[in-house]
């Protein structure tokens, strides 16, 4: 209590320090006067009385000092003094301060930005109630791919499991066509069970959220209900609370809005906020226009499952439990009508459990986490380089202040006090750099996230901005960096106090030079490692870009994405419709060839996989060849530019009513039939009963249809007309100067579909390489930064060394040495410093390039070109950084230098 009182009193007195000091002076004056008068009363002479009074009061300076210490915070005041002193000395050397601050901002900011992204992508927990207890359950098929559950499996799991306090089923997300107050809109849809919203502890922004009773759509009077998102509420309804009770028609099916989800709720996603949430059993109504009851019979695995672990249970326990439950579960839920082989395949599934505490974002994570970690390593290296760079700059700064430090020590400052001054200066710089770095990170993180999420077709909301954790990590980094680069000048203080230091001491400077050289060498070594890695990534990108994709002339190829109007696919005769719509498109001026494909070229990773085997093989799963499948319309090969090697293209006669046919890629044909003629052979494709006897009618050249980095050499093409599930498709069009408006009109004139975006094939390929481009771009940026820092460090050191040798250079010039000779000597000196570093760096780079190995394509970690170019670059920088100060020194009139001494 008392100590708090004292603290407050001292705090207040900081505000009236001057006033309090004046008070002491006045009291002391009064004191002296009283003593003087009393002494005179006792009979002393005036002079004796004054002397006695002064004696009795003691040392006034000392009293003032104690008074000040009592009044305020002595240690705080000292820190404040140090800070003021630091600010003053930084102001005196603006160019040094600017360079130091800039390099710190970039280095710390880069680290923070990358860390922010990683934080948002993998560390941050979902903003829901008790996220740590959430786990995701998936099925794992024989080919090791994660899949969802059939609806009966979901029901059975909910019944049989004993490890979860509740099981949530969900499905999504997809874009559907909706109608609100007569206006059409694309709506991002997902569906959940009734317990999700209460289980995650959500509170509605308006109206109410789902309860379990809303799921029972089998009741005669039941009508489907929907919950809209906060963003959608504001976007479409201006936040009008009367939205509750209104109707939104999704694919023609009316849903009554009962409420609005809380702001920013994104389900289990990190980037997308579903516009509309509907009950899980309502999905068939919307997607396939089947009655709700059909979900009990459908063999489709579409339900995703999230469980909340019972208190005290671990994921391992849940996994063990589900392993014991799964055989019975699978046995009980084998879909009716499965063939023997399909049944075997179904029963071979396993269940897998993983934490869902940080949300479910498999694509973003698999694509970006590893590159980001590698980039973070590189950023850390940049920070280290900046640190070493600053250490050497601070060191030469301290050397320049040699005399000042010596004076302070001579005047009685303790070594610790002076060393603390150095530390204060370092920390001030690094914390300022850290603050600027956070701002830089804020911007950088936004920019990178913007690039990553650009292709999303729905509004995205990625919380990538730095949060408290990022600020904390950045501050810690800045503090560590500050201490680290202050160590060298602090160390210097120890030896600074010597009799000779008050004079300009050249020996002290020589020793600084040795540590400085060491630091610059280290910096060179680190930079080389970094530049080599960055170089490899850039080289890799150019390799990926130059791949022969097998798709000739991507120029002039467009891809356009249609989506159905509400009910647009009702009673659709796809045989007829495809032909009609492609005819209309072909009639658009400029279009040379139009086709449709169910897979979207260059966007779908490996693409859908299927096993293909000659018809003579009984078990397609065991003896089949895993191949990429693609469903395309007649004219596709011509439009996209894949050459047909043998046989014929699909024709309109290969319709859903006709015999099943296929075109194989060259490699797949070779693999299945060797040198024999594949045309006319029969193959089995997967387990679908209709595809157990498919005739090969053609062979196409190998192409990288889906993934530019992965040659889908083994590929099988099937006619789009023969695929019953033709809802999602795109048009692949070859042409010149095709008007989007004309194209849109042509597609929409049939009244069934609307045309969405149209992009060039080149754009799609670029998007597909985004991860590579980003990594190469960021690494390249860091490489440049490292080079720049190394250059600054070396330049600083050489300028300093040359300044020290100015006299010697002056004498040599006066004695007739020519400029070239002097400059050459200085460069040789510079090379002596950097070559050691480059050598060590080269050895380190040989090992360190293994780090980026997993990101490289078509380049080995020991790529000779890169490993040759990087050291050359550094040597080049050394020569420039040495030559500039040397030339400057050589230009100075020798007489001026000699006179100055």
């Amino acid at each position, binding site marked *: 209590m008392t100590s708090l009182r004292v603290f407050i009193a001292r705090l207040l007195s900081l505000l009236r320090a001057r006033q309090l000091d004046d008070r002491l002076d006045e009291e002391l004056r009064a004191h002296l006067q009283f003593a003087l008068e009393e002494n005179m009363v006792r009979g002393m002479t005036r002079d004796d009385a004054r002397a006695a009074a002064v004696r009795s009061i003691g*040392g006034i300076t000392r009293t003032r000092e104690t008074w000040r210490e*009592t009044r305020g915070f002595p240690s705080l005041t000292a820190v404040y003094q140090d800070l003021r002193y630091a600010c003053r000395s930084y102001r005196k050397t603006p160019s040094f301060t600017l360079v130091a601050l800039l390099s710190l901002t970039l280095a710390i900011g880069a680290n923070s930005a990358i860390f922010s992204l990683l934080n948002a992508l993998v560390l941050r927990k979902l903003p829901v109630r008790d996220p740590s207890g959430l786990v995701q359950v998936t099925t794992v098929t024989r080919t090791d791919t994660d899949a969802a559950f059939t609806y009966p499996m979901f029901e059975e799991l909910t019944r049989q499991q004993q490890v979860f306090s509740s099981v949530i089923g969900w499905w999504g997300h997809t874009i559907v066509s909706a109608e609100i107050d007569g206006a059409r809109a694309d709506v991002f849809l997902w569906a959940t069970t009734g317990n999700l919203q209460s289980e995650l502890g959500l509170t509605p922004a308006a109206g109410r959220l789902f309860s379990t009773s809303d799921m029972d759509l089998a009741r005669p009077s039941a009508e489907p209900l929907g919950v809209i998102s906060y963003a959608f509420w504001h976007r479409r309804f201006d936040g009008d609370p009367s939205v509750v009770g209104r109707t939104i028609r999704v694919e023609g099916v009316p849903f009554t809005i009962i409420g609005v989800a809380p702001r920013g709720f994104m389900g289990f996603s990190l980037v997308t906020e579903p516009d509309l949430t509907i009950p899980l059993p309502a999905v068939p109504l919307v997607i396939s226009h089947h009655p709700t009851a059909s979900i009990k019979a459908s063999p489709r695995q579409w339900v995703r499952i999230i469980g909340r672990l019972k208190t005290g249970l671990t994921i391992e326990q849940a996994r063990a439990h589900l392993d014991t439950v799964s055989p019975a579960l699978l046995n009980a839920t084998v879909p009716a009508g499965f063939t023997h082989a399909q049944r075997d395949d179904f029963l071979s599934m396993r269940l897998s459990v993983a934490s869902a505490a940080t949300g479910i974002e498999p694509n973003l994570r698999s694509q970006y986490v590893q590159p980001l970690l590698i980039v973070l390593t590189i950023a850390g290296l940049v920070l280290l380089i900046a640190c070493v760079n600053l250490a050497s700059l601070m060191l030469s700064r301290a050397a320049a202040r040699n005399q000042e430090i010596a004076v302070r020590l001579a005047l009685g400052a303790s070594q610790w006090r002076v060393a603390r001054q150095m530390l204060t200066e370092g920390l001030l710089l690094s914390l300022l750099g850290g603050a600027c770095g956070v701002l830089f990170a804020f911007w950088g993180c936004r920019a990178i996230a913007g690039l990553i999420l650009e292709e999303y077709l729905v509004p995205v909301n990625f919380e990538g901005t730095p949060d408290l954790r990022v600020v904390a990590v950045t501050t810690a980094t800045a503090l560590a960096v500050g201490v680290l680069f202050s160590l060298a000048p602090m160390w210097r203080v120890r030896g600074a106090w010597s009799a000779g230091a008050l004079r300009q001491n050249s020996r002290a400077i020589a020793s600084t030079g040795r540590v400085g050289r060491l630091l610059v060498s280290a910096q060179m070594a680190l930079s080389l490692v970094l530049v080599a890695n960055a170089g490899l990534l850039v080289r890799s990108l150019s390799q990926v870009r130059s791949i022969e994709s097998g798709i000739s002339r991507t120029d002039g190829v467009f891809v356009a994405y249609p989506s159905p109007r509400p009910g647009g696919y009702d009673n659709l005769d796809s045989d007829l419709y495809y032909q009609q719509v492609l005819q209309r498109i072909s009639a658009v001026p400029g279009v040379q060839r139009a086709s449709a494909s169910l897979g979207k070229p260059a966007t779908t990773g490996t693409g859908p996989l299927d096993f293909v085997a000659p018809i003579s093989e009984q078990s397609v799963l065991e003896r089949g060849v895993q191949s990429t499948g693609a469903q395309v319309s007649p004219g596709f090969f011509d439009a996209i530019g894949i050459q047909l090697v043998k046989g014929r293209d699909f024709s309109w006669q290969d319709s859903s009513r006709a015999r099943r046919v296929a075109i194989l890629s060259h490699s797949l044909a070779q693999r299945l039939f060797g040198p024999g003629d594949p045309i006319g052979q029969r193959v089995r494709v997967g387990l679908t009963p209709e595809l157990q006897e498919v005739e090969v009618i053609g062979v196409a050249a190998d192409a990288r249809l889906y993934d530019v980095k992965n040659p889908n050499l083994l590929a099988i093409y099937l006619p789009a007309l023969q695929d019953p599930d033709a809802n999602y498709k795109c048009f692949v069009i070859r042409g010149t100067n095709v008007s989007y408006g004309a194209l849109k009109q042509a597609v929409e004139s049939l009244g069934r579909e609307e045309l969405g975006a149209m992009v060039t094939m080149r754009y799609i390929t670029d998007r597909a390489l985004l991860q590579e481009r980003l990594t190469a771009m960021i690494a390249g940026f860091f490489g440049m930064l490292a080079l720049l820092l190394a250059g600054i460090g070396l330049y600083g050191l050489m300028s300093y060394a040359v300044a020290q040798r100015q006299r010697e250079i002056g004498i040599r010039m006066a004695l007739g040495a020519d400029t070239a000779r002097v400059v050459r000597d200085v460069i040789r000196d510079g090379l002596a410093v950097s070559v050691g570093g480059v050598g060590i760096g080269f050895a380190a780079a040989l090992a360190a390039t293994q780090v980026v190995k997993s990101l490289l394509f078509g380049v080995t970690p020991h790529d000779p070109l890169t490993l040759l170019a990087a050291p050359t670059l550094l040597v080049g920088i050394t020569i420039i950084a040495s030559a500039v100060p040397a030339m400057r020194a050589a230009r100075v009139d020798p007489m001026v230098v000699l006179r100055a001494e």
Partner: protein
Amino acid sequence: MSTGRPDVLHGTLALMILRTLDSLGSLHGYGIARRIEQISGDQLQLNQGTLYPALLKLEQMGWITSKWGASENNRRARYYTISRAGRKQLKAEAENWSRTSAIIGRFAKSSEDLV
């Protein structure tokens, strides 16, 4: 000059100031200093300047208060007064001190016995 006259023992100055203000009421710095010296029978050498930081400290603790006033010969001086909290503190410290000095006194005596 200092030999034979003990310095003010650390921590006892507060007690002396509080006691002085308790018995004499409001007093200025010089008055307090003189009073302490008189009470000690001029046995104590008080470095009078050190009084002022000590007074400030007691004020921060809330044990005394101070305000400007006029002396008997009309000089402006700062007058210190003990507060209620100061009286409580004085009582506690005085008891504490007599206990301590009694103990120390006993030790001092017994060591004389031993000689």
